[in-house]
């Protein structure tokens, strides 16, 4: 028994190509090892903005989790946060419920009971259901309509189906659709834009706000900045949506179909040259030219400042952070740092970065957080002296770590600036 964690170099992976990813790096072919990153990846309610927390993004909403007790167990981690106090309720299923489906009849009454015990009348009740109801084929839309009739409030389903994690519409995609499904059609305003994708705001200093302002946009909506349900409803006045996370694509398509609001998709990047190209392309679509030089200079200054202090920085980059580990690794290498190791979930989309990485740093190792042999991961000879991501910190407890999974979303040049400022501090 080798007792070694499995990895491939980026060169090997690039040669194999997107159609021949080794089984060890495909999560559906093996047992899933429980690393910190796995919790976030595999368990849609466990970490950060999982389904449960995301489902409460609508201001003044509450959630009823209808599930076996085990599915709601770890919610106390979230409900101990002040903003979620008294917003989670549970209707626990037993074996008889599964056999007879009787729990569905109890939901409208349960919704009424929890609404009555709230100090403030909620704006919407989210009903969170889990794998069990996925298998039972529950029509939760219908149950929600019954509950709506009973309480006179919007009631929406929220699907925490871990079983569909790798399907066409995984839980985090679905929850975004549910959240925006409450918007009613409104008259459009040419100077209003929605940012879709995150459940918390972009960092305040993000240049995107200024750039949109320079293009004539007066109001930028983000669901997490809406103070109340009325403000949330004004999101349907937007002229267009900016999709900042690919998991919001379906929600954006819904916007388009239902409210006739088109969308443009932008990526979160850490390569300043690519950020510049993206803004140029975005500007062309809007028919404007963005002046982003100041922001770019600031970001590149932050990189240079860090490089001056730590020219020898050699990173392990994990996936448990606000970014794509392969793109961030490429950025780091282009800035002149070393990246000996990446812990990530390889998809066909990552090959665009792997291709470039294989030219610049062919020996960079790619590990899967989920592969069973990660139990034997040994940091001893990795050459890593700094880590980014919660998972990378877990594998290298002796090295300085930037967790980089904060709620406030780093984006664009401001994200790069913040990252390097944070790296400078550790």
């Amino acid at each position, binding site marked *: 028994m080798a007792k070694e964690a499995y990895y491939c170099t980026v060169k090997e992976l690039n040669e194999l190509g997107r159609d021949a990813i080794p089984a060890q790096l495909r999560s*559906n072919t093996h047992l*899933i090892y429980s690393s910190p990153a796995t919790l976030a990846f595999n368990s849609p309610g466990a970490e950060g903005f999982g389904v449960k927390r995301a489902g409460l993004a609508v201001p003044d909403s509450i959630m009823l989790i209808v599930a076996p007790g085990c*599915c709601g167990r770890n919610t106390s981690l979230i409900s101990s946060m002040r903003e979620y106090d008294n917003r989670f309720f549970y209707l626990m299923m037993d074996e008889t419920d*599964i056999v007879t489906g009787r729990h569905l009849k109890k939901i409208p009454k349960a919704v009424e009971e*929890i609404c009555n*015990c709230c100090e403030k009348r909620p704006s919407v009740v989210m009903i969170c259901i889990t794998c*069990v109801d996925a298998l039972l084929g529950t029509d939760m839309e219908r149950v929600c309509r019954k509950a709506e009739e009973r309480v006179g409030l919007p009631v929406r389903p929220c699907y925490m189906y871990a079983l569909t994690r790798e399907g066409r519409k995984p839980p985090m995609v679905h929850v975004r659709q549910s959240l925006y499904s409450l918007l009613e059609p409104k008259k459009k305003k040419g100077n209003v834009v929605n940012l879709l994708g995150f459940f918390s705001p972009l960092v305040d200093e993000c240049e995107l706000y200024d750039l949109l302002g320079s293009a004539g946009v007066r109001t930028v909506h983000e669901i997490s900045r809406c103070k109340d349900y009325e403000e949330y409803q004004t999101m349907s006045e937007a002229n267009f949506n900016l999709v900042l996370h690919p998991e919001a694509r379906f929600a954006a398509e819904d916007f388009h179909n239902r409210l006739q609001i088109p969308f443009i998709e932008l990526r979160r990047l850490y390569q300043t040259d690519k950020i510049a190209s993206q803004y140029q392309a975005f500007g062309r679509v809007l028919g404007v030219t963005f002046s982003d030089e100041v922001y770019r200079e600031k970001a590149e200054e932050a990189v240079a400042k860090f490089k001056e202090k730590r020219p020898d920085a050699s990173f392990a980059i994990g996936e448990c952070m606000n970014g794509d580990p392969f793109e961030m690794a490429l950025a780091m290498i282009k800035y002149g740092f070393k990246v000996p190791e990446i812990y990530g979930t390889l998809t066909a989309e990552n090959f665009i970065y792997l291709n470039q990485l294989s030219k610049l740093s062919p020996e960079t190792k790619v590990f899967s957080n989920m592969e069973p042999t990660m139990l034997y991961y040994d940091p001893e000879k990795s050459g890593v002296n700094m880590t980014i991501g919660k998972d990378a910190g877990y594998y290298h407890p002796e090295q300085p770590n930037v967790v980089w999974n904060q709620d406030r979303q780093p984006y664009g040049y401001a994200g790069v600036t913040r990252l390097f400022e944070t790296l400078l501090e550790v």
Partner: protein
Amino acid sequence: MRGLRKYLTPFAPDQSGAVSVLYELGGIIVICDAGGCTGNVCGFDEPRWFERKSAVFSAGLRDMDAILGRDDRLVAKLTDAAEKIDAGFAAIVGTPVPAVIGTDYRALRRMCEKKTDLPILAIDTDGMELYDKGEEKAYLELFTVFAKEKYEVCEEKVGILGMTPQDVSDLKAADKVREELKKEGKEAICYGMGDGLEAVERASEVGKNIVVSAAALEVAKYLEKTFGTPYEIGYPAAGELVQDLDYEGKKILVVHQQVMAEAIRQEILRRDSSAKVQTATWFMMKKELACPQDVSFREEDDYIDLVKNGGFDIIFADACMEKMVPDFQGTFVNTRHFAVSGRLCE
């Protein structure tokens, strides 16, 4: 309404209890789920996960695995892992998904045994029972499979059954129990908390067992029947759970797992026999351990009503239950129960 929770998050489920029993024993633990249950166990219900690596895996079931009943895939994954991981056994722990599709755990065990040389434990938990039920199943499966040989009895050795973080809510509890027994010239064998698979195999050599949780009562009976090992019920380190308060003539409610609640009651009465102590539990209540006035809670209202109408001066219960009775005027003593709040003793 039955099953509706407004104050308390759901308690630790049976699969968490089963994992808690097996966590330190050096096996491959496969939680037969889609990922959420494993996330719950590792990220919340197993405090040792943050301190030491263990071979806990999710089966990574996907919708078509469940719909088509592709058990062979799980067997193949487990066999693959068994070739890569150095382990003394493999355990398959059930969750709601296999419960819904009616997975045959005995068949699964036989299929796995044919493919690997490892002993296989199959624990048919379903995520709808509470942790103690899962512990009970895991203990029975564990000792049935591994404690087979009869060793010569060593009277100084005392087996501690039911010792898990879920029950004792303190990662140092095993050391405290060892210290207590050491004072009596005994050596405590804390199965699953410090003492591993070899200790389980040699379970027949202990002079007696002490049952510290109702979940371990059945396995204690099994060991008594199989090897003639006698057992006692109690918690040797109960002294530290009871604060120095004025208990004279006081009416006291203790809410915990049954054995711990009883141990606290006995400790209070030892300090002041005039106290009137009632115990209650959200978990299994074994008839042979219960006093007539002991109460079993099922719904939140059961607890609220008992406190409102019981006229208690002091309540020993997990702090998360304090907010449920804001009008309670007496003394609330925070007595952590990890399976309730997910928090350890400070």
